[in-house]
């Protein structure tokens, strides 16, 4: 929204008129933006946890949370959060304390840092880096490192096993993931998230929007599957296999530390859905009407914001739906699938996209 940039400019002008050095408004703006993003992550994660319980319940022909807060137990997540905060913080006696404490921080920091380049609405990105997409992919590889740190420092065989499986899975699925997102990048010619959304404007035949999901359907499927693997969601649930490894890499974490892992997992789910929405489903694009009384940019921005959230949560719904429908893959089946099926398909998509772009441009 253009008015957001204008607000920031007016704030800078105000503090300059008060005689404060330019460092002060910069720090204030950065703190406010980070605070808003963290608040959004907290609220969205709590909503997604409640939603997951409701979806799993209805798929399993039961009701899920119904009492806490009245209507369908909407306050269940808040109650869960309070419970986790009040739990005793246990660090195993022979665990490596420094690495044990650092691991959830690394995982959450990596998940939080990916929110910098998400295009929420036209003109509403924290920072539209010109390598935005590459930045998000490289930051998500920090999550794997945090998981290994958590598993190893717990001094627990199940945790170490879960951490190594998670690292192998995440590193293997990163390769077809990056290859599949190269398709839309080649078509749009840029890695900047804002410009990727702008490259998807207009329609074909007057009604079909020019989203990249139509020419790049294969890449979309490959990306979605790899994203499920990166988030350690079923059917790639081996690192957290609840019936095999107790809880995998975070088995020794209790209370707030476990809550941070939990929050980071759902934050990661949202980031992955946001990347898929930006690259394939047109980002914040959607029909909009001017609202009387507001400038047209603000109305466009509000509608864009709503469309973006709708598309992201639709993809998250599909992720949760898959979790409660499909079986867990065995570790060797998992690795086979990544290296022998997804990787060749991703390469083939890259080759075909390159050929079409060279011959028909």
């Amino acid at each position, binding site marked *: 929204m253009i008015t957001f940039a204008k607000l920031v400019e007016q704030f800078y002008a105000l503090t300059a008129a008060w005689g404060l050095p330019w460092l002060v408004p910069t720090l204030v703006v950065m703190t406010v933006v980070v605070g808003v993003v963290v608040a959004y992550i907290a609220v969205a994660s709590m909503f997604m946890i409640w939603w997951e319980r409701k979806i799993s319940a209805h798929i399993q022909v039961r009701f899920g949370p119904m009492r806490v807060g009245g209507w369908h137990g909407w306050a269940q997540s808040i109650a869960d959060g309070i419970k986790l905060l009040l739990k005793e913080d246990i660090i195993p006696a022979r665990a490596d304390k420094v*690495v044990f404490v650092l691991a959830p921080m690394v995982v959450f920091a990596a998940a939080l840092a990916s929110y910098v380049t998400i295009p929420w609405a036209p003109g509403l990105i924290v920072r539209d880096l010109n390598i935005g997409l590459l930045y998000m992919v*490289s930051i998500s590889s*920090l999550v794997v490192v945090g998981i290994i740190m958590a598993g*190893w420092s717990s001094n627990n065989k199940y945790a170490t096993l879960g951490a190594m499986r998670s*690292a192998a899975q995440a590193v293997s699925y990163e390769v077809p993931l990056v290859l599949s997102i190269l398709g839309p990048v080649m078509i749009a010619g840029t890695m900047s998230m804002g410009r990727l959304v702008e490259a998807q404007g207009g329609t074909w035949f007057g009604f079909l929007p020019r989203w990249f999901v139509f020419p790049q359907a294969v890449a979309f499927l490959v990306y979605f599957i790899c994203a499920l693997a990166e988030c350690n969601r079923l059917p790639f649930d081996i690192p957290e296999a609840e019936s095999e490894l107790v809880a995998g890499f975070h088995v020794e974490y209790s209370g707030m530390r476990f809550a941070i892992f939990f929050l980071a997992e759902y934050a990661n789910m949202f980031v992955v859905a946001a990347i898929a929405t930006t690259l394939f489903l047109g980002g914040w694009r959607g029909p909009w009407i001017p609202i009387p009384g507001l400038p047209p940019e603000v109305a466009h921005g509000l509608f864009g914001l709503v469309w973006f959230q709708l598309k992201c949560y639709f993809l998250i719904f599909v992720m949760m739906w898959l979790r409660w429908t499909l079986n867990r893959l065995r570790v060797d089946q998992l690795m086979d699938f990544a290296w022998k099926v997804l990787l060749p398909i991703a390469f083939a998509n890259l080759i075909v996209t390159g050929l079409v772009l060279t011959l028909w441009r």
Partner: protein
Amino acid sequence: MTLSLGIFYLVAAFTVWAAAVVVLGRNIVRAAVALIFSFCGVAALYVLLDAEFLAAVQVLIYVGGITILLLFAIMLTTRISSATARVINDQVVLSAIAAAGLLGGLIYATNRGIAALVAPPNFPETTPFLGRALLTTYALPFEAVSILLLAGMVGAIILARKE
């Protein structure tokens, strides 16, 4: 003391401290974690030099690939975290002389200045420039590196194959 100079000193101090922990640390897993921090510090230095693509690739490859490989190697080595495992070998004096010589050479080179290493001001986006350079001027080193990668992968598969 401009802001970017202050940030440079902070980032450089952080990187050097992390590297010191890697080299001098007693616990090898903590040394690996400090290595992650030093790689991130180097990525920040790349950003300060306007090489944003290189910074993202540094994090992706070094932190997301090489560090994980290192951690796997550490975890799969038996008794590597025991108290009797030696972390520092016997050639401390020789390596101190070599490191001091390298430091002297670097200080001399920095003070003298090397013209080719100064980036032009207002450099446009590095990513398309890098891509074009790799496929036109530097196509031969690019292909040689991919052959090296192929040799590495074939070697790994042969080593890991069950006989």
